[in-house]
C-alpha cells in the first residue's frame, strides 16, 4: 500500500507537469497573442511589441514556462485581465462558493444513490427496480440547462416559491439557503441518476454471485444477505464512481452556475474563457486537474482498503 501511494504520488507529479505544459503550450506559446489580448483589439502593433518586450514575452518558451511554473509554485497565479485584480483575489472565494454547493449536493447524492441503487439492484427486474431504473435514466438524460428551465418554470414562475437567481447576495428578498435550493436540485437531478445506476449495476452483479447463494442457503434472512454480504462487495465497486462525482460537482457545475448566475468556480472559468483571461483560466485549470487527480488517488486507496484481495496480497 505504501509503495502504491508513492507510485501514485509520482504519477500525480508527472501528470501535473504534463498538464501544466499542455496548458502553457495552448495559451502562451505564441507571445504576441498574450500582449494583444491584454491590450484589446484597438492596440497598434508597436504597442503590442512594446508590451511583449516589457513582459519578457519574447524570451524562449521553455524559459517562460519555468518562470511561470515557479510563480505558480510560489503562489503567484498572475493578474486577471477580466476581473482586473490578482487571480488570487478572486479564485479562492469562487472555489469556496462552489465547494459550498458541491458539498451540499454530495451530501445528498451519496446516501440517496446507495439507498436507491441497493434497493433497485437487490432484486433485479422487480417493480421497484424497473421504476428506479427508468426514473434515473430519464433524470440523467435531461441536460442541466433544460432541467434548470423546467424547475425554474415550476418553482419560480408558476409557484413563486424560490428565487430565479442565486447570486449569494443576502440583502434581497431571498435567504442564502433558498438561493441554494434550485442549483443543488439541478445538480442532484442530473448526477444522482447516474450514480444510482452505477450502484445498482454493482449490486445486481453481486447478487448473482455464488457467495450470495451460499449466504441464502445458510438460512440468512434476505435483509441480512443484502446488508451483511452484498453491500460491502457492491460498495467496493461503487466507491470509485461515487468519489469521482466530486469532480463533476466542482468542475461540471459551469452550466448550473451560469443558469442561476451563481458566483462560483465554474462560472468564473467560463467568464474568463469567453474574455480570453488567460491567467485565470490557467490557474483554474491547474486547480481543477489537481482536485481530480487527488480524488482519483483517494478512490484507488479506498478501493484497496475495502477490497481484501488487494489489501492482503
Amino acid at each position: 500500500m505504501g509503495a502504491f501511494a508513492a507510485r501514485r504520488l509520482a504519477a500525480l507529479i508527472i501528470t501535473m507537469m504534463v498538464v501544466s505544459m499542455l496548458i502553457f503550450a495552448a495559451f502562451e506559446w505564441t507571445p504576441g497573442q498574450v500582449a494583444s489580448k491584454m491590450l484589446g483589439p484597438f492596440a497598434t502593433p508597436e504597442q503590442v511589441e512594446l508590451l511583449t518586450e516589457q513582459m519578457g514575452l519574447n524570451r524562449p518558451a521553455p524559459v517562460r514556462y519555468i518562470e511561470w511554473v515557479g510563480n505558480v509554485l510560489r503562489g503567484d497565479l498572475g493578474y486577471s485581465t477580466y476581473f482586473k485584480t490578482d487571480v488570487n483575489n478572486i479564485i479562492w472565494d469562487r472555489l469556496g462558493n462552489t465547494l459550498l454547493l458541491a458539498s451540499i449536493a454530495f451530501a445528498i447524492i451519496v446516501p440517496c444513490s446507495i439507498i436507491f441503487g441497493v434497493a433497485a439492484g437487490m432484486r433485479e427486474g422487480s417493480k421497484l427496480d424497473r421504476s428506479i431504473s427508468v426514473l434515473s435514466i430519464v433524470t440523467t438524460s435531461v441536460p442541466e440547462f433544460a432541467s434548470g428551465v423546467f424547475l425554474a418554470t415550476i418553482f419560480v414562475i408558476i409557484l413563486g416559491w424560490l428565487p430565479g437567481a442565486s447570486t449569494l447576495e443576502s440583502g434581497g428578498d431571498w435567504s442564502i439557503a433558498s438561493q441554494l435550493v434550485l442549483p443543488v436540485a439541478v445538480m442532484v437531478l442530473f448526477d444522482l441518476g447516474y450514480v444510482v445506476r452505477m450502484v445498482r449495476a454493482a449490486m445486481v452483479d453481486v447478487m448473482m454471485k455464488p457467495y450470495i447463494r451460499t449466504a441464502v442457503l445458510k438460512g440468512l434472512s434476505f435483509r441480512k444477505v443484502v446488508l451483511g454480504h452484498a453491500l460491502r462487495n457492491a460498495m467496493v465497486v461503487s466507491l470509485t464512481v461515487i468519489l469521482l462525482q466530486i469532480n463533476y460537482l466542482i468542475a461540471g457545475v459551469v452550466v448550473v452556475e451560469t443558469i442561476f448566475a451563481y458566483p462560483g468556480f465554474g462560472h468564473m472559468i467560463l467568464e474568463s474563457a469567453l474574455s480570453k483571461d488567460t491567467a485565470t483560466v490557467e490557474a483554474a485549470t491547474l486547480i481543477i486537474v489537481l482536485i481530480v487527480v487527488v480524488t482519483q488517488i483517494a478512490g484507488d486507496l479506498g478501493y484497496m482498503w475495502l477490497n481484501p484481495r488487494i489489501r492482503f496480497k
Partner: protein
Amino acid sequence: MTNPASLRQTATVARPILELHDVKISYVTRAGRIDVVPALNFSLAKGEALGLVGESGCGKSTVAYAIMKYLGGAGRITNGQILFNGQDMARMSEDELRRIRGSKLAMVYQDPMSSLNPTMRIGRQLEEVPMLHMKVSREEARQRAIKLLGEVNLSDPEMIMERYPHQLSGGQQQRVVIAMALMAEPDLLVMDEPTTGLDVTVEAAVLDLVAQLRHKHDTAIIFISHNLGTVLRVCDRVGVMYFGELVEEGPIREVFANPRHPYTRGLLDSIPTMGADKHSRRLSPIAGQVPSALARPVGCGFAARCSFCEPAACTTAPIPTLPIPGEAHHEAKCVRLAELPPHRRFQVVQGEAISETAKTGENVLTIDHLYKIYRPSGTIFDSKPAEVRALTDIELTAERGRTLAIVGESGCGKSSLAKVLTGIEVATQGKVKLIDWEIGHIPVEKRSQAQKKSIQMVFQNPDSTLNPSHTVGFAIRRALQRLRGITASQAKTQAAELLRLVNLPMEFVNRRPRQLSGGQKQRVAIARALAGDPALIIADEPVSALDVSVQAAIINLLIDLQEKRDATLVFISHDLSVVRFLADHVAVMYLGRVVEYGTVEQVYAPPYHPYTEALLSAAPVAEVGKERDRIILEGSIPSATKLIPGCPFASRCPRKLGAVCDDQPPPEHVTQQGHRIACHIPLEDLAKLNTRAAE
C-alpha cells in the same frame, strides 16, 4: 422409484430423510415452459449417500437446487412433492425454509472460491451459521468453527479463521465450505460437483474426507458428479440421470458391475479402463448429445442415441421403471431390459495389447535441457520481484507418428512447456528442436511459414478456441489459406474435406461457435489444426472440458487422425486413464521438472516415482474392485518462486528419506529400456516399495 416393495429396509424402519414423489421441475422462459425434470422419484434414508451422475445438461444440478428450494426466478416445481423429514417443502413458509437451510439441510458447491464471500474473513462466515441456527454466542460459534476446521484436516485452524478466501488454496477453500456446511450438524448434505476443478491429489483427499465425515456425523448425502469414479468412492447408491429422468438406480457396486440401462453402459464404456490402450481397442462414445427439453418425446428420451433402440417398443409409450430380477433395489427405466445382452466391460487380456514400443521412429521433437524462467520486470518501487521457475532442465523427445503425454497437476509447468513449443513464450535456456529447426528461442511471430505449418495446437477450452464472430467455414478456410498458401476456392473444397475428416456435417460451414456444442467446437478446432498437415500437434487438455461420452469420441478421432496422417502428438493432460489409453510415451511433471519418463507400460508399472505412485492412487476409477489404497499427499505444491536445492517433491513426498531429499538434487536413474526416474531412492528399493503397497 418408490414402489413400496423396493424401499430399502432401513427406510421401512425409519422415515426417509428425503423423498421425492413425481417431482416435475420447469423453467419458464421466453420460448415457453421447459420441463427440465418431468417426474422424479427417489428417497434417501438417514446417513445414506446417493450419487447422481450423468452428462451435463441432464438436470443433476437442477435437482440439487430444487431440493434446496433455490431454483432462481424462472424455475418452479410444477408437480409432485419433495418431503424433507416428512415435511412438504412446497408448503413451508419462507421462515420455516430459512430455519432448515443451513441447519438441517446444507450444501457444498462446485466452485469453492466463488462460493465464499471475498470481503469477509473465513471466521465470520463460519460463525454466522451456529449463531443463526443454534443461537449461541459468538465465542461458542468461534470454538465450534475452529473445531470443525480441524475436523476437515486444515492445519492451524485459528490462522485460517483470520484469512480471507483468496488467501487459501482451492483445496483449503473446499474444506472450509465443507466445514461451513457441517457447522449446524445437518441431516442432509447436498454436494454439487464438489471436487470438479480440483487437482487429482487434492480431489482424492477431499473425497476421503467426505467419506470419513459422513460416518462420523451420520449425515445423508446427495453427491452430484459427472465423474463416475468419484461417486464410487463416496456413495452407497447411485442414480444415473439422463434428460431429467432417473434411468437407472441401485446399489452403486451392482450398478457399476452390472449396468442395465443402455445409457449407463454407454457412460461406463466411454471411460478408458485402467490397463486398456489404443492398440487393443477404441473407446465407445455415445453418439449425439442430450436433446433440448423443449420437445420431450413420448417414449424413451435416450432412444435417439441408443444402439439398442427398437422404435416400435421404445418411442411409442411412456417407459416404466422396472426392477432388475435377482438384484434387490436395482431398477432401470428401459422396456428392453430383458432383451439386452449381458454387459461386459472391456477387460484387458494379458498379451492382447500389441506392444509396438519396441520399434523406434525418428525424433520429430527433441527438447534439450530446457529452462523457462519468468522474470517480472521490476519497477523503481518494487525492485526485486521473485522469479518464477516454470520449467527446469526438461529433456524429452517425441517420435514421428507417436504420442508423448505430459502429465501433472496444475502448476507443474505443462502449459508453460506448450507455450514454449508454440512460440507464445521463448525458452530462457536450452534447445527445442523441431525436425531440423531450432525453435526454442524464436517467438511465433518470427517463425518461418514452414515452421508454423509444422506445429499446430488444439486448446483446452472449447469456448475460447474459436472466434465467436467467425463462422466455422471461415476459421478453417483461413487456416488453409495461410498455412498452405492456396486460393479461396481451393480452400473451400479442402475445408469441406477437413470437416468430413473430423466427422462434422457439411452444413456446419455456416455455423457460428455459439451454435455448436463443446465437442463440436473441439472437432472444428482439430480440423483447423490439421489444415497445414502439421508434423507436430500439441493438444493441451483437449478433452478435459467435455463430458465423458464426448471425450471418448474426440480421443478416438485423435487416434484415427494420428494414424492416417502419421502426425506426432504431444498430449497434455491431468487424466491418468486417458493418458494410459492414448499415449506411447509419458512424462510426469512436478513443479517444472520431469520426475519420471518412459513408455506408457514403464510409467504405469512399478517402479514408480513416489509422485507418480501418488497420482495413480489418487485417480478416481469407475471400476468395482479396482479401487486402490490411496496415498494422500499433505500440503500443496510449493511456490514456483522458491529455489529448491533438493528434490521438488520432498515437501510432500510420503517416501521421503530425510534431509538428503531437501538438500541434494535427486539423481536420475535410467534403465536400459530408457525409463527415467529422478529420485534419491534406488530403483530396486522403489520397485519393492511399490509392490508392497499394491498388495
